[in-house]
């Protein structure tokens, strides 16, 4: 069996996506923590295009971009599948996975901006969460149906990172009971053993987010 290496960074939800999937499939791997403020030669060599984590290296061959990595892992280790067999259902799962990517700029803006720009981001973020809840999740327990699938993994950051982000920014996106189904999904997702055992420490994450938030506010108002 060829060796598997994952280049990741502890605060990154993208990194965790790959960890979750590797663990769900019982794939042994070596984890390499990258310092994103001082990227290693290894990372720059393995991902010269974007210079980002996560990067999966299998038998010396690198794969970059988290969703590309997830599809690769799914195909290479088919046990505990994340995608259904039916092509239409697969297309739907891929659609929602892609949709998550589409929402990134809004949530980045929410976290990084202040004033009017942030207000706009808050409004947009809530609309996106509404679409995710009503059209993506619907009445299902998970995006993948009865079991977690690719889209659940892609939206996993909402379960593990959003609350902390809201705390660091001081603005709630998922207020009270406005998103009951998404809220239920968060609880169900975090209850999955592999997920439960592989989430960043809340306090560490909060400290990290607060620090980053200070930095963004600083540069936004200077």
């Amino acid at each position, binding site marked *: 069996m060829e060796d598997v290496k994952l280049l990741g960074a502890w605060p990154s939800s993208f990194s965790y996506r790959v960890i979750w999937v590797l663990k769900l499939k019982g794939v042994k791997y070596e984890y390499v923590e990258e310092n994103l403020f001082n990227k290693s030669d290894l990372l720059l060599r393995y991902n010269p295009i974007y210079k980002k984590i996560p990067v999966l290296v299998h038998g010396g061959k690198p*794969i970059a971009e988290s969703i590309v990595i997830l599809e690769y892992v799914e195909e290479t280790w088919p046990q505990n599948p994340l995608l259904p067999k039916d*092509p239409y259902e697969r297309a739907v799962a*891929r659609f929602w996975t892609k949709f998550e990517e589409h929402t990134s700029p809004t949530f980045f803006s929410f976290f990084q901006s202040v004033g009017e720009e942030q207000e706009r981001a808050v409004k947009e973020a809530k609309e996106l969460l509404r679409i995710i809840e009503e059209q993506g999740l619907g009445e299902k327990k998970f995006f993948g149906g009865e079991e977690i699938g690719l889209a659940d993994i892609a939206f996993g950051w909402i379960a593990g990172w959003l609350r902390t982000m809201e705390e660091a920014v001081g603005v709630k996106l998922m207020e009270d009971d406005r998103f009951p189904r998404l809220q239920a999904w968060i609880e169900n997702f975090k209850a999955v053993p592999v997920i439960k055992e592989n989430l960043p420490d809340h306090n560490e994450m909060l400290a990290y987010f607060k620090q980053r938030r200070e930095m963004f506010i600083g540069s936004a108002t200077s």
Partner: protein
Amino acid sequence: MFGMRVRIALAEKGLKYEQREEDLRNKSPLLLETNPVHKKIPVLIHNGKPICESLIIVEYIDEVWKDESPLLPSDPYQRAQARFWADYVDKKVFTLGRMVWRTKGEEQETITKEYLECLKVLEGELGDKSYFGGEKFGFVDVALMPFYIWFYAYETLGNFTWAKRCMEKESVSSSLPDRHQVYEFLLEFKKLNGIE
């Protein structure tokens, strides 16, 4: 542009389909119903079920009609590379490309430089291969080809033999509009939007 990808894929598989032209300034109820999230084309409707997002549609077509002209390779690592580069086309070529003709002056110069860098990267990835897919026309070729018709308008690529090779394929040439038409269209658009 993205609709062309689907047309090429359908043609590659030799499939018959009904084509509905959408007026994007006056979207039909069918479009709004089948793509409520983005309200965009292309949408493929197969046996009454809608599939959205051009690359997802192409992958769907490749999976359902898997015996005819496969677009994705069978090896998982090669597939990962194909997906990576198709995604690169979306992230970089598309995003930068549309900014090239929407900006002017110094900003346009900077973006054009970045855009050309991306095309160089793609050229590097193509290397000596006939197609991005290797010996056979594949997923990344489908992803990138529609942008070729915009290259003439940017006057950026003179010697792009890969594109000429793709254009020789019936499935491609019958799916793409004439690039001179596109150039005229862009000039009109610029005028209408006050971008000189």
